[in-house]
């Protein structure tokens, strides 16, 4: 630890340690509600609170019965399947469209840049309930309500802003002369884009795609409006589970979701670092 400056007096020390305590409290405030779920999901009793046995760390007070229940319930299985289908399809769509949009917006000859950017980012700013309601009325006309396709399109729209933001961020550091160099050497614009631009903005594309996936994965409002029983996703199933069958199954699912999120974040960071190295041209 760094030595504190010699001129520190009482108030300096108070400020110095006070700040650290405050930061710890904020962190606890953010993390505790999430972390508390994990031990509770192993409760042998169908309650949402710590039993005496659990507090004594008695092994008999813990079980994996709620996890078994999740995997034996066809409704949960269906919702897990749906979440992944919709999430992956929507993220793919968002990534492709968002990347193309970001590249177009980065072009120096693009007219009405600000207006178009604002429009494309609006799904992130407009309250989801409004988007969901709008989509409901709009999609009804095309028979998209109660279909996987409708849900995928809706979630893709919600995910695109994340991709645009992350890809735009990587593009600001992109040296256009690399693209020019490739074209000057005889590559068609499409080939130059694929060979040169895409590999170099990959960190942004990957993060954007994962953000889009997570957005779809925990989205519930649009699902409430657009999904029929066959399109129920995990959050939707948790939502009804909360009302119908109050037991820690939900906590088991929540724990799994936390683990998936952590896994995604770690993957994201590793991929980003690797691409960053490639971008800097020092990977072997």
């Amino acid at each position: 630890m760094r030595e504190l400056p010699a001129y520190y007096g009482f108030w300096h020390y108070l400020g110095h340690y006070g700040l650290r305590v405050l930061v710890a409290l904020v962190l606890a405030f953010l993390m505790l509600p999430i972390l508390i779920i994990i031990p509770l999901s192993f409760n042998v009793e169908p309650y949402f609170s710590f039993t005496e046995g659990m507090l004594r760390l008695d092994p008999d007070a813990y079980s994996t019965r709620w996890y078994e229940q999740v995997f034996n319930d066809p409704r949960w299985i269906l919702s897990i399947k749906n979440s992944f289908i919709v999430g992956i399809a929507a993220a793919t769509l968002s990534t492709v469209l968002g990347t193309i949009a970001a590249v177009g917006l980065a072009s120096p000859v693009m007219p009405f840049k600000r207006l178009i950017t604002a429009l494309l980012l609006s799904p992130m700013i407009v309250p989801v309930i409004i988007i969901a309601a709008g989509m409901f009325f709009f999609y009804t006309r095309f028979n998209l309500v109660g279909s996987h396709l409708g849900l995928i399109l809706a979630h893709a729209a919600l995910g695109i802003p994340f991709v645009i933001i992350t890809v735009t961020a990587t593009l600001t550091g992109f040296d256009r002369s690399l693209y020019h160099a490739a074209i000057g050497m005889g590559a068609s614009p499409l080939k130059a884009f694929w060979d040169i631009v895409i590999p170099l903005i990959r960190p942004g594309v990957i993060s954007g795609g994962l953000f889009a996936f997570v957005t779809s994965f925990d989205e519930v409002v649009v699902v409430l409006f657009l999904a029929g029983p066959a399109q129920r996703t995990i959050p939707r199933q948790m939502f009804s589970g909360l009302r119908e069958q109050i037991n820690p199954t939900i906590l088991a699912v929540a724990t799994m979701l936390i683990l998936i999120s952590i896994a995604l974040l770690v993957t994201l960071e590793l991929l980003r670092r690797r691409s960053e190295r490639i971008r800097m041209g020092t990977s072997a």
Partner: protein
Amino acid sequence: MTNTSSAYLRFQNVKKTYDHESLVVKDFSLDVAKGEFLTLLGPSGSGKSTVLMMLAGFESVTSGEISIDGVSITRLPPYKRNIGMVFQNYALFPHMTIEENLAYPLTVRNMAKAKIRDRVGEYLGLIEMQKFGKRFPGQLSGGQRQRVALARALIFEPSLVLMDEPLGALDKKLREQMQYEITRLHQMMGYTVIYVTHDQTEALSMSDRIAVFDDGIVQQCASPAELYERPRNAFVADFIGENNFIRGRVSKVEGEVVHIALPGGDTVTARAESELRHDQEAIISVRPEKLFVEPTSHASDNRVPARFVTRHYVGDFIRYYFQLSDGTEITVKVLNDLTAPNFSEGDEAGLVWLIKDCSAYPA
């Protein structure tokens, strides 16, 4: 070179505006012969890169024509122009190895794999970097990256190669080394080079011809020697090398030679580089190394008295600072030998020079 029918690359009244208001390139006309090393020299922001970008096809031409071998390329997309280009920041693809970088222009031309390998090997040899083929650009020094960029611009054997301040980021010693490398490869392979720089030393030492570019037009296009010794206007005289400028008024015109009356009362004769009329305000230029301090054995046509101010010791020569009676400051370069005179401040001395070393321009 002046024979227009032999022009390989030709700019005809090329104009360029980015904002539809002001012309960055006002009226650019230039003929370049096949195999020539032509340098575009001009101050920063004068539009040199813009000219190169139009030639490469990355910027559109507002009006005018650019043609190669008599065929207009103005409407040809950049990837069909077959022009090699070296960028100031090298523009090496950071995610590809040196070999992959060199192979890229060949790959997009669908050359056979084995042939690509041979060619890449050959060019790695040419820039003496055989050992570095598997490295990434980020693992090379500035000079090495520059060599790779050069090889990559040449490997698909374009007949025209553009270089935009390619040595700008290198230190002095490396720059001289690379200047030699660039001219060596040019002489060996005989392609045509359009080289852009704002560094006149670089331009003078490398080029067959230099086009001095300023204010959106070519001020003068000539060989390095002609540019240095017979600058066509005051801008070129000032921009190329060092120069002394003295203001005066034309007192007599005798064909090519004009007499100029200086404010201090003396009259000097000079070569008129452009039309000068009697009684017109004029400015004459004399290079510091063409001036001599009396007593001297050098022949002289002109003499003006001057007052010694100070001298700076440079090494191989000594720089003397004088002032004319009207306050004009004059620099004289004197070889550092036994004859270098000693003055103290305020001493009077005579400065002499020849007509042929002295040009007059309208002020």
